[in-house]
């Protein structure tokens, strides 16, 4: 709890709790004890090997298959909708991570900020497609709940990292 109080306001906290329940991580959270973390993706780099030089630092796009899609504001990993899954669902055969991180991303279409849960999908070999990396409000591991240079499959029985989804949790207020 200590950590959460540092990185998110009370309303957001309630929403994160709800996110945790939606994604069935209650048992994992119980075992984590004082932790109340939401998790996310693995690492990667803010650059584009396709040749368009350095990627933008912030997202604003409306193409769900593109790295700069607005929901990906702090996503670091392979887009699951490039890997046989969807924006919010894991590809067949992969497990949803039990812990995730909730980012806060601005939807340019309705002008609202949304809490986004970046679940990793786990238990299969790295997808290897559509590697993206954005880091708005991302922080080092001393703010673990907003850290994305770590494998958020860490609390699953099967820990191999496959890809990352970005599921809407709710509107961020305050």
């Amino acid at each position, binding site marked *: 709890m200590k950590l959460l109080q540092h990185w998110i306001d009370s309303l957001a906290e309630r929403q994160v709790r709800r996110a945790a329940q939606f994604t069935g991580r209650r048992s994992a959270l119980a075992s984590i004890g004082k932790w109340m973390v939401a998790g996310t993706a693995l690492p990667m780099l803010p*650059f584009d090997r396709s040749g368009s030089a350095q990627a933008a630092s912030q997202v604003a796009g409306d193409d769900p298959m593109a790295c700069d899609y607005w929901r990906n504001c702090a996503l670091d990993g392979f887009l699951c909708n490039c890997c046989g899954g969807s924006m919010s669902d894991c590809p067949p055969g992969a497990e949803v991570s039990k812990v995730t991180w909730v980012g806060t991303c601005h939807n340019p279409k309705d002008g609202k900020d949304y809490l986004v849960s970046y679940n990793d999908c786990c238990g299969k070999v790295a997808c290897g497609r559509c590697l993206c990396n954005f*880091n708005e409000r991302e922080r080092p591991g001393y703010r673990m709940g907003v850290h994305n240079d770590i494998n958020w499959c860490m609390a699953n029985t099967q820990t191999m990292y496959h890809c990352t989804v970005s599921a809407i949790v709710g509107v961020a207020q305050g």
Partner: protein
Amino acid sequence: MNRKFALAVSISVALGGTVTAAELEPEISKTIPAVTAKNRIYAADIAINHIADGKLHIVDADSGKYLGVIGIGFTGQVTLSNDKREILVSTGYLSRGQRGDRADIVEVWDADTLKFKYEIPISDKRAMALQYEGLMRLSADGRWLFVQNATPATSVSVIDMQAKKMVGEVAMPGCWAIYPVQSDSKRFASLCGDGTIQTVTIDDNGAEAARKTSAKVFDAEADAWFMQGEQAGDDYYFVSFKGNVARVNVAGETAAVTETWPLASKAEMQKGWRPGGYQPLAVHGDSNRLYVAMHAGGVEGSHKNPAKQIWAFDTQTKKRIARMPGHAAISLEPSADGKRLYAIDIEKASIVIFDTIGAKPKVRAVQVGEVPIQLEAE
């Protein structure tokens, strides 16, 4: 002389060759016994596209020759022994590659023969993280190895390298990374999310004996510190997302900031010049040099962007002495003698060797692997 040979001779003569060229001798393959290069660069590669199979690339800083590679497994962390003769890897393997039972270990490799020596089983709480040097560190006397854990609750595994055994676990809730104290091998510091620094002292058995928390020294919301700490004796240099340097003394029971200074002028700050990358800072204590990977147009979320320039400073005068080409650097490391600077160019997946420091440095590049992240030097 048969007809075929006559033809060969005539062609050879026509091409200006000689008829008496010696035949190649038969060869017997053997193993090159050891790496002998004096100045080695180590680059840890997350190999994200096949992440179970990370690598440590080894390059000769003098010749630029690729010397060899060691597998570091799934999110393996790397550190060198204090005498640089051993490579320590903390990593994990799944019994069926992508699935199956997990086994976490510390592996010890010979840094010259590049042969595996032995392994020590460790807790499977080990943080499965990108390579950062603060996630596995040896004590100054080499006795204790500290390995960062995350489940995601955070703790540190304590391994006794004399007994070759994991002996303890220190809970570090809300804190991350390990900064050993040079003058006290049983003490390390760690950065915490509330902006404090915790200092932990272990006893002879590797169990927690004391813990102190500093005052709040940084703001993780407004101007977070990168987790990289560049060691100079009992001091560590940190840099913040917005470009403020902090020097922290970790020797005592409680860590203390001893000086802070900004990297950029007000005009440069307005243009958004900020540090960025994964190992964006390099400090060479003996020569009082500090290097930072910098990008312009920095905003919230740009803290991992590659460098547009590398800025060099004198840590005594706090003055900038050079703005060097950026080479898309995300990680920096000084050479042992401080005369060279090494960088990872992430766009080219290359190690860049700056043979001279200045606005127009003499530079060489060596392509290595896929996604090199962490740099170490002998």
